[in-house]
């Protein structure tokens, strides 16, 4: 009885008391309960392997994203290199996009076999990419910013969780379905409702860009609106996280001197998140630039001309890569595919700049909040 009492009330005294700290074989005596002491050496070796394995295994896996990135860049530039050599600087300034003759014998230019008459100019594509993305940002940034603000400042935790779910659905809806909706529903809807206005816009510089026939709705405007909706979740969720980091004490300080909530947002929250929002915008831009299917299905996919009005058909780099790869395969010299690779290079460079810029701005924004 007494031993029992002591065992439950007092402490259990350690049979191990004074067992050595060192890993010497003597120390292993504290594993005397191991039924297989004979295999202790083996077991210890195995334990060391098991112990170290997550570290090495995960290091190997950790290298994979880096290797994938390097492989993508090298393969793309390697493929594009002959095209960069032949197309030269004209690639970014000219407008004509032609695979050349399939039937004539290929000629060699700068040591690269190309079909006769093959010319590649990506200017309309570059401009189109930038225009569509700019339009997307004009739509997405204010919507994202305001909704992030209201989510953090006004909505209950439950409601803001729901908004989070909606943003996830917005991310999750496949690009082709945005395209489908843009082409079959939104495009015709915009064309139908804007046509009466568009025809009465005065034919003067700047405003002229908003004038013209709306056709069936495929074109810059629809592509831009669809892109804008698609990048809202990226910008909104980043903005939301930024606004959440604004210290409550600062906001309370604003309220304590009688500012309205919106004045607090403008005078206290905005300066705090400004550079982060620019970062978020870049993040959204990066996504918009590279978006493919939705744009391809809504832009009208015209080659060789720049948009003269917001309703014109146009094209972007990403959409062109998809739409032209089929016909590029008919080029026996492979030069068409190489030129598409060159487009890919331009795209990857622009998006990398955007994403790195975004990362720098965002890390600075979060750094600011942690140090201040």
């Amino acid at each position: 009885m007494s031993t029992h009492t002591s065992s439950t009330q007092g402490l259990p005294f350690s049979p191990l008391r004074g067992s050595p700290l060192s890993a010497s074989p003597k120390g292993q005596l504290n594993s005397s309960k191991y039924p297989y002491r004979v295999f202790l050496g083996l077991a210890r070796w195995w334990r060391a392997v098991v112990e170290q394995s997550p570290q090495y295994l995960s290091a190997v896996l950790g290298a994979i994203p880096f290797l994938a990135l390097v492989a993508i860049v090298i393969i793309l530039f390697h493929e594009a290199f002959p095209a960069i050599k032949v197309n030269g600087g004209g690639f970014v300034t000219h407008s004509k996009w032609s695979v050349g003759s399939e039937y004539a014998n290929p000629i060699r230019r700068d040591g690269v076999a190309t079909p006769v008459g093959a010319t590649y100019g990506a200017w309309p594509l570059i401009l189109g990419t930038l225009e569509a993305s700019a339009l997307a940002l004009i739509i997405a940034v204010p919507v994202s910013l305001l909704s992030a603000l209201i989510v953090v400042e006004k909505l209950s935790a439950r409601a803001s969780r729901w908004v989070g779910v909606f943003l996830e659905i917005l991310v999750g809806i496949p690009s082709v379905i945005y395209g489908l909706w843009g082409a079959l529903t939104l495009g015709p809807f915009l064309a139908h409702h804007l046509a009466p206005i568009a025809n009465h816009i005065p034919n003067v510089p700047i405003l002229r860009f908003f004038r013209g026939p709306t056709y069936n709705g495929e074109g810059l405007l629809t592509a831009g609106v669809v892109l804008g909706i698609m990048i809202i979740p990226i910008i909104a969720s980043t903005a939301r996280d930024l606004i959440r980091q604004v210290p409550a004490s600062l906001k309370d300080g604003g309220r304590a001197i009688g500012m309205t909530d919106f004045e607090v947002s403008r005078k206290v929250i905005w300066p705090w998140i400004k550079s982060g929002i620019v970062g978020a915008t870049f993040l959204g831009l990066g996504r918009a630039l590279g978006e493919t299917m939705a744009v391809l299905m809504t832009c009208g996919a015209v080659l060789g001309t720049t948009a003269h009005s917001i309703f014109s058909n146009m094209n972007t780099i990403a959409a062109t890569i998809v739409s032209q790869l089929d016909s590029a395969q008919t080029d026996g010299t492979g030069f068409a595919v190489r030129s598409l690779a060159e487009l890919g290079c331009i795209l990857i460079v622009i998006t990398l700049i955007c994403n790195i810029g975004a990362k720098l701005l965002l890390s600075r924004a979060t750094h600011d909040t942690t140090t201040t």
Partner: protein
Amino acid sequence: MTQRPPSPALDQLNKKRRFKDRLLWGIAACALIVIVIPIIWIISQVVSKAIPHMSMSVLLTNTIGNGGGLKQAIVGSITLLVLVGAIAGVTGIGAGIYIARYAPRAIAGFLRSTVEILAGVPSIVVGFVGYIALVVGSHWSFSIWAATIVLSAMVVPYIAKATEVSLRGVSDSLREAGEAIGLRDSLVLRKILIKSASPGIVTGFILALAISVGETAPLLYTAGWSTTSPTFSLKHSPIGYLTYPVWTFYDFPVKSASYLALEAAMLLIILVIALIALAHLLRHKLSKNLPQSL
């Protein structure tokens, strides 16, 4: 403090400010509506157009030319989902663990940037590189494995990032408590860190899969298209998937084709929403036995 006389000018000003405040929050509320409208609009359009033509035969027959059903595409999409889930899941979670837990500070920072940059590479570029390197360069022709690799390269960064962020969110004191009773590192990682981070990891993983299932551009020139059930050989194994009919058939002048596009779109929406719901369900279930802060 002295009592100020009531000032009509001040009242006026306050009224104006209060009005402005309300107006601007009203506009912000409209912004919220702008987020919700497209979702409802898209889903209702697709579903209402697709439902009348929906029948069991869509699920049970393969595509024949530009008609028939979508059986092989459904099977193909789910096959790709499983393959990508396995490959990208292991890679992404492993990479996330390395960055959050084992990598030296400088390497962790470097890999973190790499992951973010890779996430920003446009999907079409990844697909195009897959086409150049695997389909043509390695003479695989259209291949289920080329598609799997390309999709995995796209979603690994999302999974790695989610894993890393959730692991870093686990409080140090929990890890130290494990170390303080002399648990081995691998045990601390498995039983304490990963378990605490699991809601975030699982959510990130499933949302990444939801994104992968809706991809089209990178698949067009790697997976090709097939009207029969998937085969698993390395070369010449094109595979059907749900996004293909949406893109290819949506503007076909043939009725059966455009119905197929709408039905595929509806199935995709159902699949994606089911995955998002699953992510939230699992998150809820997993975080039940964790401290509230996580």
